[in-house]
């Protein structure tokens, strides 16, 4: 009996010791990783725009790329597998430029908008999860300079800029490129009023946080130029006079990110002469004129001046959470977590070190984690796309 007990004890100890050993584990490889997608060409330059997770667990990235023969940004699509390893990429020919977010999944295809660099006409492009090919066709109806797009049921809300009439144009576009509704809003008159917009497109000036969306079942909105000011404009698309406007201060103040939480409730971020404010829970006047300057918000001096802000609604630890992603002065990506129900600050997390990192998009993943797509500078100088994947254990403290 004593011998049996001794043998069992030995077996137990050995089993315990063996269970503590490390083994190559593909699950760990999928759960957390940092991947930098390097190109060994000295002049190669990429700027990620959007990312989605594909049904196979991989990642599809829409990015811009530097073109030698054009001031516009070229189109680069890249696929990574679920462990973040590079699978394949497509450099779309230079006859199409200026890809914009969002990369949207409809009917087993991924859509985004871009434009013809000669005619400046907006085009709609699609590809599949494996990047088999990219199909690009014009948006029927003469839209120019696409600025931002968002899924709306099975169609898109598209903000574009009409450089002839100097209008910010909000349209509803089907996946086959047909416009069902469209309305233009004057940005103002004069030769210089469109200069910052054009500089945005040729990337010689500031990159504006153009955005579009819809209040659930209600008004459409766009974040763009209206009446000489970078403003948040609400409309039902029936009239060229907006239903409501939350004005900025020319292009020195306005929203840097906006999402509707239903009704008049929004989650937003705003900039004001370089300062940044996060407003996780704010009520906006969707009919009438108001000013974003009056909205206050949580100030973040650690963020870069007029920085990029991405807002993602996520479920973390069974809680509805607002994830703000932005760029810090220390060249890291800052993630700030707020309770969606009441806007209470929950936690923060900083990603990237040693080399500069900038955010492009943050998404939820099927394993209840988060994936952050960003830009980093290899060797401190070569702009390259990166993905930082966080698993739910890393988010456990939120």
């Amino acid at each position, binding site marked *: 009996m004593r011998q049996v007990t001794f043998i069992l004890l030995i077996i137990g100890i050995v089993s315990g010791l063996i269970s503590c050993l490390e083994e190559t584990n593909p699950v760990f*490889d999928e759960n957390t990783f*940092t991947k930098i997608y390097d190109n060994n060409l000295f002049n190669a330059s990429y700027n990620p725009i959007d990312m989605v997770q594909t049904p196979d667990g991989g990642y599809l990235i829409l990015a811009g790329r530097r073109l030698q023969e054009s001031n516009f940004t070229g189109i680069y699509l890249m696929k990574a597998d679920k462990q973040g390893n590079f699978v394949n990429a497509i450099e779309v020919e230079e006859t199409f430029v200026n890809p914009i977010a969002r990369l949207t999944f409809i009917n087993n295809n991924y859509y985004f908008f871009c434009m013809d660099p000669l005619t400046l006409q907006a085009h709609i492009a699609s590809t599949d999860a494996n990047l088999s090919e990219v199909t690009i066709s014009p948006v029927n109806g003469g839209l120019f300079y696409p600025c931002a797009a968002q899924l709306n049921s099975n169609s898109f809300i598209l903000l574009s800029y009409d450089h002839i009439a100097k209008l910010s144009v909000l349209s509803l576009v089907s996946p086959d490129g047909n416009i069902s509704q469209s309305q233009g809003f004057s940005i103002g008159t004069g030769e210089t009023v469109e200069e910052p917009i054009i500089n945005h497109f040729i990337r010689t000036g500031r990159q504006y946080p153009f955005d579009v969306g819809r209040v659930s079942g209600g008004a459409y909105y766009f974040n763009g130029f209206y009446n000489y000011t970078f403003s948040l404009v609400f409309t039902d698309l029936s009239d060229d006079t907006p239903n409501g406007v939350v004005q900025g201060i020319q292009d020195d103040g306005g929203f840097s990110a906006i999402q509707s939480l239903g009704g008049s409730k929004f989650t937003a971020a705003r900039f004001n002469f370089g300062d940044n404010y996060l407003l996780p829970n704010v009520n906006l006047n969707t009919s009438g004129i108001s000013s974003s300057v009056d909205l206050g918000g949580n100030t973040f001096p650690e963020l870069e001046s007029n920085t990029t802000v991405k807002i993602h609604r996520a479920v973390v630890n069974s809680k509805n959470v607002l994830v703000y992603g932005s760029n810090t002065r220390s060249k890291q990506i800052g993630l700030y977590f707020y309770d969606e129900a009441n806007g209470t600050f929950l936690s923060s997390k900083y990603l990237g070190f040693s080399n500069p990192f900038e955010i492009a998009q943050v998404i939820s993943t099927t394993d209840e984690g988060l994936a952050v797509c960003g830009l980093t500078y290899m*060797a401190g100088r070569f702009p390259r796309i990166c993905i930082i994947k966080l698993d739910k254990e890393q988010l456990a403290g939120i």
Partner: protein
Amino acid sequence: MIRFYALVFLVISFTALHGQPRKKAPSFNNPAQNPFGYFLEKQWWIGLKVGTNFVQIDPVKRYSAVSPTNYLSSETEKVYGEFDKTGSQATLEITFYYKGFSFSLQPAYRHSRFTYTNDYEWTDPENVNNRLELHYYQEQKVDHAEIPFIVKYDIIGNRLRPYVQLGAYYSFLINANKTVEVSGIDYASGGINEFTNEPVNVGAKDLFASNHWGLLGGIGANYNLGNVRLNLDIQYRMAMSLINSTENRFGNDRLSGIAEAMDDIKMNSISISIGCLFPMRFLASGFKTLDQR
């Protein structure tokens, strides 16, 4: 640290030798030579060994934070240095001898070092001056507490007793540090600009496995001197499990930010130790010993 081990070893050796200077060296393990052979068929030995070790890394699966889009990942794979850095170890040996076989438990503190390098290059086919070369040199220092169990067999001899040994060990991680030094040549700055960045030093305990195990084999020799044994021991360790953490591979932002991620690796090593062993059972009065059994 090596000096400390050497000093401890010398003090113990000197004390042991000096404390029993007039004893004729009994042949503890050769029953044919004395009437107490039956007694000398078994013996307990305890002692201390110190020495140095040299590591060889066996990459099981390659990883990198860099995923190349237009070149092969093998071009930037890590190249491991083989037996190029000296580590150290201090071992407490407890051995039971029985009829030529020794069963030995040798708990040890082991400090291992290993290095690897990898290289990146960016070029411009249209302008040869647009070129940057980067060289990453990474050194790991890992401390383990180790419990080996070894069976030795004395081949021949009396005063000088060479032996062969086989065994297994189980290691517990105590600490780990990592230093990354990035140097390079920048041809695009108007000349040949050779630079070396400040090294990145980080605590890397989370990047290594808490435990690992392996097999060992080796040779050695004991030299009977007075009542003690001087020992020279050479072991080769073959790791059977990974020494890195598979879960925390990208857990250090400072490292993943510079594109560093550890491979799945096993750590083999050669250890050379010298030591001094003391018998725990002594013979009766005729041999001035203590054992009265």
